[in-house]
Each structure stands twice: as C-alpha cells, then as structure tokens.
C-alpha cells in the first residue's frame, strides 16, 4: 500500500471507508487523485480474523458510547453501524435494491417528504455500475419498476424460509422474487461462491460477501490510495472559509493530515457528530451548518416482523438471511392510509439475536424462553424495511459526556409519528395474512425493531433547506463534501447501501467534471 506523508496536503482525505467513503476512495484514486481514506476501525482479514460466532464478531460494530432518547429511543450496536475498514458493509445483510423512481421525487410526485436533487434515470445508470462492481446475484426478471438489465450473476437458490415468503405472496396474489444480493453465486477471481453458512450479519469469513472491504477497497489500493485504519478523526480544521485537513487520533496521539479537500462519510450519526464537533471561531455552529440542519431529519427504517410456527423443519440458519423479497408495497400506493413504501423479506436470525427477539418482543424468560428457543427450527418470519419520514425532531446532537478520545459523544433522539405507526399497522397485518396463508400458527408480531440510519446532512437544491448540493458538496465550504447515508432527503422502502454506493460513484464523476472545468 502506498502511504502519504503528513507534511504535504493530499487531494482528498475521506473520513470513513464504508459504502460511501470506500466507493469514493476507489473512484477518486482511479481518476488520478491522491487519496487517504481514514477509518476508526481496523483493517480485517476475514479468512483469518473472523469466527463463526455472534459474540466474538461484536468487534465489527460501532459500540462506542452513544446516548439514545426520545419517545422511541433506538437500539443501535450490531444492528445499525460498523467500525471497521469497509464500514457497516462488513456485517451488512447484502440486500442490494434500487429506489423506486418516484421515491426520488417524493414531494412533487407523491406529496410527502422532500425531493432528491437528482434524476432517477441518472441514478439508475449508477446503480447498474455498482451492481456490476459487486457482481450482484439477482433474478432474471425483476417484477417491479421500469425495465432493468440482467443482474451480473444468477440468483441464489431459495432456502425454506424464503419459500414461505414466496408461498404467502402467491396466496395473496402479489409478486415476489429472489432478493438481489451482494454475495457471489459463482466464483469470481480467487473468491469462492457463498457457502450458505448464514453468519452474514456477523461478517463473512469466506469473502463471498461483496462488501466494500473486498470490492472497492482493493481497487482503491491498486489505484494508489492509502487506507489509514485505526484513525479516528476528531476535528476538521478550517481557515478562511475552507477546510485545511483533519485532526485524527492514531496510536495514542493526535495528529494532523493536511488535505485540499475533505469528504465526510462516517454514516448518519458520526457524520453530523464530526461536523458539530468541528465547530470553531469561523463556524461556531459546526461545519456546513448554516441551514441549522446538520444532525436533523434522522431517518431509521422500520424493521417490524411477524413470526410463526410451521410443521416443516425450516432451519433458517442456513444461507443469507433474506433470500426472498416482495417490494409490492413500494410500488403500490392504493389502499394505504399513510405516505411512503415498504418491502419485506424472509428471515434467518442467529441464536443470540433470536433469544433477544423472543425475550424482548414477546416477554419470554425462564423455561418458557428455553422451550421456545428449542422450536427455532420450525419458526418462520417476515420482516419489513419501511420508510420513515423526515422530521427535524428526530436528530443527532452532542451530549456533554466524552468518549475514549475525549470527543463529545452523540445523543440520538427519535420518535415514530402517526405516519410510521399507520405503516407499521398495515405491514404487520399484511405480513400476518401472508404467513397465515402458508399455514403458520402461533403467529406473533415484533413491533419495535428499527434498522439503517440516514438523513442527517440532507442534499437539496436550496442552501436554506439542505446541507449539501446535488454534487454532495457542502453549501457553506467549497472543499468539504459529505457522501454517505446522511445525505438522503428520504429513505424509501429499500435498504440503503446500493443507493449510497451509486451516489458515491456519481459524486466522484461530479468532482472529476468540476476539476476538468476548473483546469
């Protein structure tokens, strides 16, 4: 790996190496820029470092202290963010979906939320680029939305849990399909196809998973980028209205790396935290914050589920957890008493996750818990990924406490509003009908889970109502960019990582274009 010195400014320091930062590191280095991508987490070698074990693999998660409050304080940890080179994609579930086109213009086309300052057709070209870069395994024909090309790799086979989704959907007369997944269904170079071991959300120890760690980052290195791991950025410095570099903590000391441009890609809690923690004399309210919107409009996604018991041995621990999906309610607006969309997928919880679900969601403990756990091989479930509307009251601010680096920790405030509650009611009812149609009995509803983090530095066309412009460049500071889950004006009813990577590819092209025009 190339390494840059601290005495000379590089073209770009990227903070975070996940879906946004890792993708940009590759694309910008390939375009000839000098790039250092820093990450607070370690650079893992999955083949040697990853155990098949939920507890041990907690080492991948962002578990630094965060305070959660509001009417529905959100449970972060394993379920929401990673602290590893490769970001949250190292332990993500690989579901790789495109936004419904209208969801990019939710305000003007559907009457809620905010518009994205980009055209869906352009985004669809970038989706295709990312799908090819990750060799997404998907169905031959995708049932919803405008025509899309073939997925690069063939779809994975269904496991029993996925067959239950398919049977339920068919009984209710709606479409379903094999989930487009970022794990190999055929060999790729030295990487073997997925072996269906089912530990995906604790990290893939075979490298079949096409995370940022095994896709974009090798490309970034090959193009001369430096990945500086275990480097926690605490402050972005500015002078005369421009950023000059970053203060970061590595090997026990604070250091300074000068840079001509800084891109923040720390995900929707750490990104606003860093911008707020970087407040200085020039920018007393934090960087890029003239709109006052940094940290606001935090959107998780609804992750409620319905579970039941069947005669069949399902053994849902085998294979990626979500092999089948229905996006029906992302594309169908009739029959809803709320705004927005949702999809739902089959499930395959590992033991600790399942024990926490049964004890937390159903209040089981003692022998009742042990006995129910013993029936796991006969349990099936459907889980939604549902749209949360932007709301300024859901937000990330700074708490008074400090972390191990001496930096103020984030406070995350969240509540579901009426729209979310109505969507949850509809989704739980629909998923219950779907499970019932397959003969599942003893059905119950898990009503309070959430996933994903977006929206705390939204993009837009107006500096008064957004933090970055359509190029992901901050309105206030011309050489400061934000490119990760935070820039989403709305979240739609699909998992976000494909959109984040597509936006990062687009941002790289916009930077290149601006650079050509300037020179």
């Amino acid at each position: 790996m190339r390494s840059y010195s601290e005495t000379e400014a590089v073209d770009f320091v990227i903070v975070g190496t996940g879906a946004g930062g890792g993708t940009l590191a590759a694309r910008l280095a390939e375009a000839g820029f000098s790039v250092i991508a820093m990450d607070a987490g370690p650079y893992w070698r999955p083949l040697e470092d990853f155990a098949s074990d939920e507890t041990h693999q907690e080492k991948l998660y962002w578990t630094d202290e965060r305070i959660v409050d509001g009417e529905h304080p959100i449970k972060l940890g394993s379920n929401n963010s990673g602290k590893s080179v490769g970001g949250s994609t190292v332990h993500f579930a690989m579901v790789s979906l495109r936004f419904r086109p209208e969801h990019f213009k939710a305000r003007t086309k559907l009457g809620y939320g905010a518009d994205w300052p980009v055209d869906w057709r352009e985004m669809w070209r970038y989706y295709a680029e990312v799908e090819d870069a990750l060799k997404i395994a998907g169905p031959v024909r995708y049932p919803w939305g405008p025509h899309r090309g073939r997925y690069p790799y063939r779809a994975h086979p269904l496991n029993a849990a996925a067959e239950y989704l398919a049977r339920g959907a068919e009984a209710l007369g709606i479409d379903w399909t094999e989930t487009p997944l970022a794990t190999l269904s055929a060999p790729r170079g030295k990487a073997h196809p997925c072996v269906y071991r089912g530990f995906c959300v604790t990290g893939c120890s075979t490298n079949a998973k096409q995370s940022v760690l095994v896709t974009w980052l090798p490309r970034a290195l090959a193009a001369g980028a430096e990945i500086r791991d275990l480097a926690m950025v605490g402050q972005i410095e500015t002078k005369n209205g421009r950023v000059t570099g970053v203060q970061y903590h590595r090997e026990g000391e604070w250091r300074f790396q000068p840079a001509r441009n800084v891109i923040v890609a720390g995900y929707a809690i750490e990104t606003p935290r860093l911008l707020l923690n970087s407040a200085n004399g020039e920018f007393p309210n934090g960087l890029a914050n003239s709109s006052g919107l940094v940290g606001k409009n935090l959107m998780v996604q609804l992750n409620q589920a319905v579970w039941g018991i069947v005669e069949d041995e399902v053994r849902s621990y085998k294979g990626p957890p979500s092999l089948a999906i229905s996006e029906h309610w992302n594309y169908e607006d009739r029959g809803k008493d709320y705004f927005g969309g949702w999809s739902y997928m089959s499930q395959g919880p590992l033991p600790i996750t399942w024990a926490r679900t049964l004890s937390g969601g159903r209040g089981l403990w003692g022998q009742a818990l042990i006995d129910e756990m013993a029936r796991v091989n006969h349990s099936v479930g459907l889980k939604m990924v549902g749209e949360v509307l932007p709301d300024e009251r859901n937000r990330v601010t700074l708490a008074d406490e400090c972390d191990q680096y001496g930096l103020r920790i984030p406070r995350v405030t969240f509540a579901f509003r009426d729209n979310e509650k109505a969507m949850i009611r509809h989704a739980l009812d629909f998923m219950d009908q779907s499970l019932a149609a397959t003969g599942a009995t003893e059905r119950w509803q898990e009503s309070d889970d959430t996933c994903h983090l977006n929206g705390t530095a939204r993009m837009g066309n107006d500096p008064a109502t957004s933090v970055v412009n359509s190029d992901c460049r901050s309105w206030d500071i011309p050489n400061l960019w934000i490119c990760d889950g935070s820039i989403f004006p709305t979240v739609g009813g699909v998992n976000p990582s494909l959109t984040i990577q597509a936006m990062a590819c687009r941002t790289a092209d916009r930077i290149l274009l601006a650079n050509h025009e300037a020179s």
Partner: protein
Amino acid sequence: MADRYPDYDVLAKSDTLSWNPVTRKVIAERMATAEPDILSPEQHATLRRLIERIVPQPDNRPPVNTVALLLHRIMANRPDGYRHHRLPPLREAWTIGLAAIDAEAQARHGQPFALLSNREADDLLRAIEASETQAEAWQDFPPALFWSWRLIPDIVSAYYAHPSAWSAMGFGGPASPRGYVRLLANRRDPWEAREEGNHHGA
C-alpha cells in the same frame, strides 16, 4: 420439555471443516471462562440466582457458564453503542440493579433474593418487568428499563453464546469454511442436528 435433539452435540464438529481455527479458539476460551471476583459475595449470589431463573440450565448437557460470561462483560464495562438516557453505563447499571433486586427481596420477604423460593423470585422479577416495585432503591433507577435494556438482553446473550445452548436448539453452530448444501424444508446435511421423532432429511 424433553430435549428435541438428544443425540446432537455441536461440539462434535469442532474438529471438522465446520470450525475454522479462530472459531475453535474463541469457543474454547469461552467455555473455559471462570467467574472473576468482582462483586461482593451477596451481589454474586443475587446474580447467580437471577440467572438460574431467567435461563434455566439445559437438561443432560454440560452447564452453561452464564454467570462467568456475564461477569466478564460487567468487568470489561464495554459500551454496546446505545445507552438509554435514563440508565447509567453497563457496570454501574448492574451494580445498582443487583442491589435493588436484593432490596426488593428484603422489602417483600425480609430475605435476600438468593434465598427466595422459585415462586417468590419469579413474582419479584415480574414486578420489575412491570415496574411494580416497592423498594426505595428503584427511585432513580427505572426497573422496567433496567429489565428490558440491560438485565434480559445481557443474560440471554451470555447464555446463547454457549455450545450447550446451541445443541439444545438444534442450531448448526459454527459453519466456516464448510457451510451447507441442503437448504430446502425438511432437508439436512449429515452434519446437522437430527430432530427426535422427525424422520426427514439426511
């Protein structure tokens, strides 16, 4: 309930392709984890009794060292990445919580929690779960939040980190580099658990 997988032991696979070297190492270390001496004898007894009630040991299998695993977690005091604004950090929450459980037992029965009958202990736990406690000790320490954000998740996570618990639920266990071939309903690979009374598969 009778063990559904009486002839299954996930550890039998530990020397096969299902377990990579790092998995073997972390599981062996976990099973050998002893109880560190970090609590007072009274608190230690309270924790032991609490764990017995929340996660009873499996029948006819090596016991799960839940107490040791949880004590290590309390000792490490490593955050989980989200702390309810009304609860203190992990170690402090457990120290206050164990004292409060004992105080509740004293208030109700004039005895420490460790000496309560099963029924008394369970009734007391249900009161914590429902925020219907009597002792002063809960004044600034919300019982139902301690229950759902700390007590239950920490205990069940420790218990279900142990191979005995995996075997009893017929979980395939560690699976790398070898995963699975048969994914359909009622099909299992030869290295998966056979369910008693169920003649499907393999």
